[in-house]
């Protein structure tokens, strides 16, 4: 890898053969956080991209080792903060699996609904940010208007808008808000009306299409060998939806399609996410009227202790497959914890797929990889 002195040396001078080395980030409007890309350019053409991480490293894995199985869940909200619910679900599922806790049906269904709402919210934010990367500012505000409805629902039920910490091992922290169902239905209604706006402004737009079609092409075999998951891999024709492959919570009882596009370019990844939002709506519609009555949290011991051994649980976040791996020594805290975050693998293909394209294409490619830097750099 690069060391710091090398970075400084390289970037103060022109490289060999007229190469231009540009530091994009850690403070750059298109990197959505503190990602640092050392981009080697030849004119406008990209020759090499080297991502540099570490600007927002908070050693979350190490922190989790000193927290109990109830406490460590809240930290995971801070990894991929746009799908914090799903991160929390992954941890709760792992603890439940390790201790054989029975989760009530009500909790399972509510978790599923909330996970799908989180996915929609994340994709809404992504669609706005993606349009902004390509220079269209307005869709951002339209997307945030719908996302605001979701965060309002979250605020009502979970008490927070971004880092909810609503899911506990065994179920939910408290019952859903009495108006939860009506609000979710109102959201579905508005979403279905307004989703055509993205088609008018973004999807169908000739400039947007020409910016994304045939750009950043990732083949299916490359997607697998780089470990890509989520919409990035599904845009290349790999079916890798954990909700289908290894259903958790209430995903085994709902009907939905795994969206797969085969083109592998930025537009395919874009379309996967847009269509996934519709599938999420479909899942929510099936569940929202059928939330079973009963307890919202299962019976758990006061002090949670995982048996000695190794445990792994994977879920599908908005960005791809999140894996939680715990080595337990039988105590109240994990001995070793490891998160397999989707963003890290998705970022690793950037050099491969953006090489040889223009700087403008780098933005389109990076936008559709949907990078959340705290997720990559835990």
């Amino acid at each position, binding site marked *: 890898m690069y060391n710091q002195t090398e970075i400084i040396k390289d970037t103060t001078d022109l490289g060999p053969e007229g190469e231009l080395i540009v530091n994009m980030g850690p403070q750059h409007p298109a990197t959505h956080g503190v990602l640092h890309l050392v981009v080697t350019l030849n004119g406008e053409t990209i020759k090499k991209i080297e991502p540099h991480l570490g600007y927002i490293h908070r050693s979350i894995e190490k922190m989790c080792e000193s927290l109990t199985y109830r406490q460590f869940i809240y930290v995971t909200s801070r990894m991929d903060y746009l799908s914090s619910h799903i991160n929390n679900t992954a941890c709760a599922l792992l603890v439940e699996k390790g201790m054989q806790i029975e989760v009530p049906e009500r909790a399972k269904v509510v978790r599923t609904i909330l996970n799908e709402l989180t996915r929609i919210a994340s994709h809404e934010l992504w669609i706005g940010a993606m349009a902004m990367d390509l220079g269209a500012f307005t869709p951002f505000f339209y997307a945030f208007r719908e996302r605001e409805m979701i965060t309002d629902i979250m605020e009502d039920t979970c008490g927070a808008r971004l880092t909810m910490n609503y899911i506990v091992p065994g179920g939910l922290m408290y019952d859903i808000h009495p108006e939860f169902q009506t609000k979710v239905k109102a959201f579905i209604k508005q979403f279905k009306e307004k989703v055509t706006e993205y088609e008018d402004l973004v999807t169908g737009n000739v400039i947007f299409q020409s910016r994304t079609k045939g750009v950043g092409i990732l*083949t299916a075999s490359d997607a697998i060998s780089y470990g890509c998951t989520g919409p990035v891999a599904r845009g290349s024709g790999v*079916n890798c939806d954990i909700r289908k492959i290894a259903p958790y919570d209430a995903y085994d009882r709902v009907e939905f399609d795994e969206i797969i596009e085969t083109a592998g370019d930025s537009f395919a990844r874009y379309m996967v996410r847009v269509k996934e939002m519709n599938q999420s709506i479909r899942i929510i519609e099936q569940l929202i009227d059928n939330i079973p009555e009963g307890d919202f949290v299962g019976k758990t011991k006061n002090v949670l202790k995982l048996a000695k051994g190794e445990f792994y649980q994977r879920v599908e976040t908005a960005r791809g497959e999140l894996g939680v791996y715990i080595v337990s020594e039988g105590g109240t805290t994990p001995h070793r914890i490891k998160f397999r975050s989707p963003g890290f693998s998705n970022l690793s293909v950037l050099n491969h797929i953006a090489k040889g394209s223009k700087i403008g294409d780098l933005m389109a490619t990076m936008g559709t990889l949907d990078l959340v830097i705290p997720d990559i750099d835990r």
Partner: protein
Amino acid sequence: MNISSILFYAISALILGAGILAVTSVKIFRAAIWLLFSLIGIAALYFWMQVEFIAAIQIVVYVGGIVVLIIFSIFLTQHSGKEMNSPARSKKIFSALAALFGTAFVHNLIVHYEGFAFNSAKPFNPSVAEIGTQMLSTTSYGFILPFEVVSMLLLAAMVGCIVIAMRPANTINSEIPNSTTLVNNKD
């Protein structure tokens, strides 16, 4: 001395000063910028002479075209920011001699034919339509032949550009993925 002649001397000073700076500057980009000012000064001189059409063409061709081209080629060279080495003394002396000789020659020509007499005949003010007609006329003093020769030259230059800019066809479609390599990893 009226305002008009003050303006003339100011413009001339700009042209000559910028010209001297253009040849003496050690930074190539600055030299280009001084050349630009010199050329703008010449356009200003045309405006002063009230031949606006020529002045506008001077700006379009020299400033908007040639200087921009020069600046672009400077950008494409590597060491555009570095200071150039000062030329050898013998080169300097010969350049100065050449400049002096040129000045003397031009001066001699002007004195021989017209002198510096101020010609105060009626102002030269052709309409744009007249210029257009003259450009395409085949009568005496018509410019149709040079006009067409220049068009041919430009056409040749354009064809040359296109040939240089075209890239080989095989490099375009090499990165499209093969859609038959789709893999399922269902477990």
